[in-house]
């Protein structure tokens, strides 16, 4: 069943308030529904206190709400609540894994396997850990269509590979990687499997058990939640053995002046006062998305991207798009217009109220591979309409006309 778009759009105050805006940058961050804005405000107005500390009822109520959010996020990805760690965002989640797991488990000569389509958030933390441990970094290459070159996997998965960290859905190509298959093969080779779910968790149903990974990271702000709260899911057995990343209050069992012992997961990984209100509002976002239906959202994104690519192919031959064509492609369209620079294109579209992003989208290695310093990118979400895609296409035609001497 298609989404009932009008009702969905009505849920987003910013969208209702700006009828002329065509917001096509949800891949960077999504807009927020009323339910999430209200959850934030309600918590601050009615139940605010620090968590896990006070013996008074207000703090207990705040703790309950925070832990309730953990349950909701666990349900959102098919996990146990003890496996859900609240962090700031995907970047922090991946740093947590790289530091807590990587520094303790990687040795000189070990290998870290990534891919050529990774976001900087899944590259730089590994660079830092590789420098300290002497581990080496390798990458799964891409096919010309922008899929993982899986034929190369067996050769790459030597016994030296101790961790495979991979993006689930590319924020540039829209490619949905066959993570379950890679995870199966990587685990058979004895490697830890980490998944960057920043783009998949907001847009498709996720069942971490079915993915077969050890860690799964995502950001709340890309899935209708507020900024400042995200999730690292870790398989219970792996978390049990994992040393802390940050130390401080809340994550301890017992502290002496010269030593301390640590709490069980997930508290072990939540040092200091967490983003309480943000986590609670993220719970509201997950409820909201589940209410709409993650499968519906995925089908909606799919329909939009197919429609957009078809029109671009047929009506704008000067536009080059990137990423695979097929069911393994989400609602992201990175493109270039002739030889024009992405900034010039995005800036011109902005004059028509069309918000697209221009740049390397934190994926410089991928852009180097594409042979471009930057691309423009339009991306879709549950509130995006076909009419907005039409306006985008018409806008691009005007831009083409405006820059006709430049192409």
């Amino acid at each position, binding site marked *: 069943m298609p989404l009932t778009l009008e009702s969905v759009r009505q849920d987003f105050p910013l969208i209702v308030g700006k009828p002329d805006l065509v917001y096509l940058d949800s891949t960077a961050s999504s807009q927020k529904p009323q339910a999430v804005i209200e959850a934030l405000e309600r918590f601050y107005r009615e139940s605010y206190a620090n968590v896990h500390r006070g013996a008074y009822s207000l703090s207990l109520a705040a703790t309950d709400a925070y832990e309730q959010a953990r349950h909701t996020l666990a349900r959102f990805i098919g996990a146990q609540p003890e496996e859900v760690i609240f962090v700031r965002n995907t970047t922090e989640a991946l740093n947590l894994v790289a530091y807590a797991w990587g520094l303790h488990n990687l040795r000189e000569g070990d290998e870290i396997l990534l891919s050529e389509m990774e976001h900087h958030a899944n590259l730089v933390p590994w660079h830092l850990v590789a420098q300290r441990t002497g581990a080496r970094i390798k990458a799964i290459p891409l096919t010309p269509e922008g899929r993982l070159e899986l034929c190369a996997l067996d050769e790459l998965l030597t016994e030296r590979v101790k961790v495979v960290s991979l993006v689930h859905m590319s924020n540039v190509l829209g490619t949905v990687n066959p993570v379950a298959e890679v995870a199966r093969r990587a685990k058979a080779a004895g490697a830890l499997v980490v998944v960057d779910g920043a783009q998949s968790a907001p847009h498709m149903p996720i069942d971490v058990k079915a993915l077969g990974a050890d860690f799964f990271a995502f950001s709340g702000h890309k899935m209708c939640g507020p900024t400042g709260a995200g999730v690292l899911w870790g398989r219970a057995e792996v978390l049990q053995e994992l040393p802390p990343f940050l130390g401080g209050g809340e994550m301890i069992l017992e502290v002496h002046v010269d030593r301390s012992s640590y709490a069980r997961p997930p508290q072990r990984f939540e040092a200091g006062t967490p983003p309480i209100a943000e986590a609670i509002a993220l719970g509201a976002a997950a409820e909201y998305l589940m209410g709409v239906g993650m499968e519906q959202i995925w089908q909606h994104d799919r329909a939009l991207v197919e429609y957009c690519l078809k029109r671009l192919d047929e009506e704008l031959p000067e536009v080059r798009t990137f990423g695979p064509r097929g069911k393994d492609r989400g609602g992201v369209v990175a493109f270039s217009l002739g030889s024009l*620079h*992405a*900034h*010039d294109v*995005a*800036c*011109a579209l*902005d*004059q*028509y109220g069309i918000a697209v992003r*221009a*740049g*390397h989208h934190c994926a*410089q290695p991928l*852009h180097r591979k594409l042979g471009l*310093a*930057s691309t423009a990118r339009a991306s879709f979400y549950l509130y995006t309409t076909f009419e907005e895609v039409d306006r985008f296409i018409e806008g691009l035609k*005007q831009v083409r006309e*405006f*820059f006709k*001497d*430049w192409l």
Partner: protein
Amino acid sequence: MKLLEELYKEILLRHYKHPLNFRTLEGASVKMPGVNPSCGDSLELYLRLEDGRIAEAAWQGQGCAISMTSASLMSELIKGKTPPEALELTRKFKAMIVDGAEPAPELGDLRALAGVHKLHARVKCATLAWNTLEEALKE
């Protein structure tokens, strides 16, 4: 589109397609890279100083029409200037782009970029070459 029509004039097209001094410089006194980390645009600026003046300026890089035009015209304008004079031009250019100040006549054709002030997202594009020049002259 009014903002764009004011900005994307013939002169930008010319410098975008045929940037001036777009080459490396043998025997440069200073060679300075500049990047815009947010978008990945980059350039390399070469200066040859002689008798306390910028005898030659050249650059290479990639970027949008605004950053290319800015670098192209800058490389032409600073030739023959002393470093303090070049820094004074930098100040005037940035005042025009960042603060929206009235374009100084010494900026010549660069005044065509004055409209960038109204396109906040592009301020960094226009100033990339100039920030690189400032770095280069510090050396």
